[in-house]
């Protein structure tokens, strides 16, 4: 899947989190440093301080709840929003003050923004004015072939389905061969079934074109499936950046632990690589000391039926490939995911067992 080398060799930046999750790939394409943007009015979300770097050909997802400033960040990189402070460098060149058309960065809009007065082919040709007429025509056809819409050049945008419109928007952007493409919630206008199908399609297209891309989304599943790395944004700041696996397995905060996948947060007392909790002494994924919150993924917990157990099942949802249990133990309600096999009924007494490394949170 990952044809291109991603983030090789990391150095610890000055203001990185203590865990060093801010990674800078060696062949840097884009560096964003201390971006800040506040609005006097309107409902656009503020950006407090966003810094990250990404490599050539990398797919980075900016993931966060709505109103966290991820779209504002994207628009600043694209040149549609001027930052109050901070710098943006593309291949080492400072582009912070350049207008959008001089940046050479592609942008795919949430509503695709296809020009309604032009047909599909003319839309794809729109940015190819430097080329000769014949060359532009050839390039546009090539792009339409790439996105699998070869025969539809003469159609008008409104005659296409949502998925087709999106592919035209992508073809139009990729036609000018930008080193970086920005995608603002690209799948939000598609229905659920189309979304899953399209996102692998888009990933393949971007990889084939060799363009790096930044994708803004609030859908963690989308980010996990599509991105090489994910930057989690909370209230205008990047709180963690890393590969999907790293972020899922080693969330730095309760916010990240609950926003990407689901987590049970339990208190404990850490002592190096172990912590004492209500579930006994548990191994930690990284060293910590003193009182900590600990994230326990629902699939890390095993349920054992026990008539004298301290906990009781209070809810159950069968989901086919697995089942979800809500288990009440004293004051605490825990979420547990187990395989589709043995069924435990609501009301039954159980014992909880945690059988894996758990993550101490900052």
């Amino acid at each position, binding site marked *: 899947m990952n044809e291109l080398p991603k983030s090789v060799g990391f150095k610890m930046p000055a203001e990185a989190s203590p865990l060093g999750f801010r990674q800078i790939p060696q062949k840097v394409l884009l560096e964003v440093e*201390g971006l800040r943007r506040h609005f006097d009015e309107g409902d656009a979300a503020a950006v407090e301080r966003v810094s990250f770097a990404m490599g050539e050909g990398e797919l980075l997802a900016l993931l966060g709840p709505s109103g966290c400033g991820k779209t504002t960040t994207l628009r600043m990189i*694209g*040149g*549609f929003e*001027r*930052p*109050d*402070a*901070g*710098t943006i460098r593309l291949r080492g060149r400072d582009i*912070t*003050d350049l*207008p*959008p*058309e001089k940046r*050479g*960065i*592609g*942008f795919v*809009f*949430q*509503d695709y*923004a296809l*020009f*309604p*007065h032009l047909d599909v082919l003319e839309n794809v040709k*729109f*940015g190819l*004015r430097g080329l000769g007429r014949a060359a532009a025509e050839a390039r546009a056809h090539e792009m339409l072939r790439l996105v699998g819409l070869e025969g539809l050049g003469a159609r008008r945008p409104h005659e296409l389905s949502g998925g087709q419109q999106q592919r035209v*928007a992508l073809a*139009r*952007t990729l036609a*000018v061969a930008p080193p970086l493409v*920005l995608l603002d919630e690209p799948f939000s206008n598609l229905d659920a079934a189309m979304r899953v199908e399209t996102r692998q399609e888009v990933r393949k297209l971007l990889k084939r074109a060799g363009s790096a891309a930044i994708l803004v989304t609030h859908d963690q599943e989308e980010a996990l499936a599509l991105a090489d790395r994910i930057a989690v944004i909370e209230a205008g700041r990047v709180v963690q950046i890393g590969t999907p696996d790293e972020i899922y397995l080693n969330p730095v905060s309760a916010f990240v632990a609950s926003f990407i996948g689901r987590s049970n947060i339990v208190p404990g007392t850490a002592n190096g690589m172990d912590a004492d909790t209500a579930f006994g002494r548990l191994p930690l994924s990284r060293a910590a000391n003193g009182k900590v919150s600990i994230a326990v993924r629902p699939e890390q917990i095993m349920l054992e039926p026990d008539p004298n157990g301290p906990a009781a099942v209070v809810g159950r949802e069968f989901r086919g490939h697995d089942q979800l249990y809500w288990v009440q133990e004293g004051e605490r309600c825990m979420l547990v995911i187990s395989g589709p096999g043995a069924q435990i009924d609501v009301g039954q007494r159980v014992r909880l067992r945690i059988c894996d490394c758990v993550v101490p949170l900052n």
Partner: protein
Amino acid sequence: MTQAAALTRRRRLPASRLLFTALALGVGALSVLPLFYLVMRALEAEPAQVVDLILRPRTGWLLINTAALTLGVLALTTLIALPLAWLVSRTDLRGRRAVNVLAVLPLAVPGYVMAYALIGLSGDYGFLSEIFGVTLPRPHGWLGATLALSLYTFPYLYLNLRAALSGFDASLEESARALGSTPREVFTRVTLPHLLPALLAGWLVIGLYVIGDFGAVALMRFDVFSLVIYTQYSAAFDRVYASWLALILIAIALSVVWWESRLREGAHYARTGSGAGAGPQRFTLGGRGQILGWAFVSLVVLASIGLPVAVLSFWMTRGELASTLPDLIASFLQSLSIAVPSAVLAALMAIPVAVLAVRYPSPLSTLVNRLAFVGYAVPPLAFALAFVFFALQGARFLYQTHLLLVVVYALAFLALALGPIRSALYQARPSLEEASRALGQGPFATFRRVTLPMIRPGVVAGMVLVFVIAMKELPIAFLLAPVGFRPLAITMFSRTSEGLLMEAAPYAGAIIAFSAVFVGVVLRHDRKAGG
């Protein structure tokens, strides 16, 4: 923190925004600047003389006449438009779709043509005496002017009231019934208060029109401000008195606008609940109701459309159409030679103003948009007089040129062009322009390749509106027409005022035919707005 300070940058305005701002400010300044010349001319008088001018009994009479005419027209148009709107939108009147069109059609008959029709109807050799042997005295003065203006302007009120009535949430009326009100109480306590914003909007348009009208009052010889301004300026050559009258007239018009906006602020009746809201329930008329309803509709249609059509046909068959045709065509071409460039210029002026308002909203853009409405709110004769003084003192080379007339038309009708262009811009999503920028197109290439093609329908609609209005415009042309310039409206007006009804008929016919296009545009727009 010096680094942070260095990173904090001042926001620079992009060149495109600066250009649009400069252009829009230029347009705004152009519509206000001449008014200063009007003020300067007025201030040439000695203070004592000014007091004498303003306090002379004549001015008082003019005020009373203007007020009487405005109130008369507002009352009569309400009496016509309210029942008509109610019949069409709230009852099961048969053929109400046709009534809807018939109720808007009178807009095609300008006030001075309506006045012509009323004059041509009566008198010793008029339509009635020749056909039916009944001789009515020729209407003149307050009654004649009120009739002529009301029969032409009531559609403005009708359109507003019908939109309000058909968009009205029936559940409000039903709640009132459920709370124990009689139908009559429901109308006065619920329906009527909700119609207030529509009434005010219609009254504003009609009021401004009446205050500014010149043709109808001149033909009916009713002394109101605009008529006297004209006679003072052109016959008595008392330009200082004319300026003072023009300033008073402008003050009246602006206070009408101000009062309307004050009253409308107090009358904000958006539905507060959620949900779709029930559509209006139609009142069942019954047999007698249908007859009464149609009797009313027939009366209105006969007076507002039947009358001018019949009188015009009568006078046209009296004259020899063939012999007047060359003159008619020449006159038509002259009208065209002004109306076409005016429409283009108005659209060109409206585009930067609209772009500024829609894409870069700020206090400055609000100001510029207000200035763009000056030409619409200021009565045409006062507006034209200001430009006469401006040309005489500030730009002599422009005086009595086609160019000046074109510029004044463009400014006077700027608001008409602005409406459709602005709504087209609102519909053109900003992301389309941003997509073009991201594809490497600069702001000007983006405007040419994306924005302009998308707002083209709005630009065309704006140009059509200005074009048709300019084709039939009278008072501005009267003051600013270059020597020898005889467009349709002026020719028709001067022949009518000389009593040459037969000779005026073909010109009046041409104007009506042309204005029907305008009504067509209004009706189409109205239907698109979900009428």
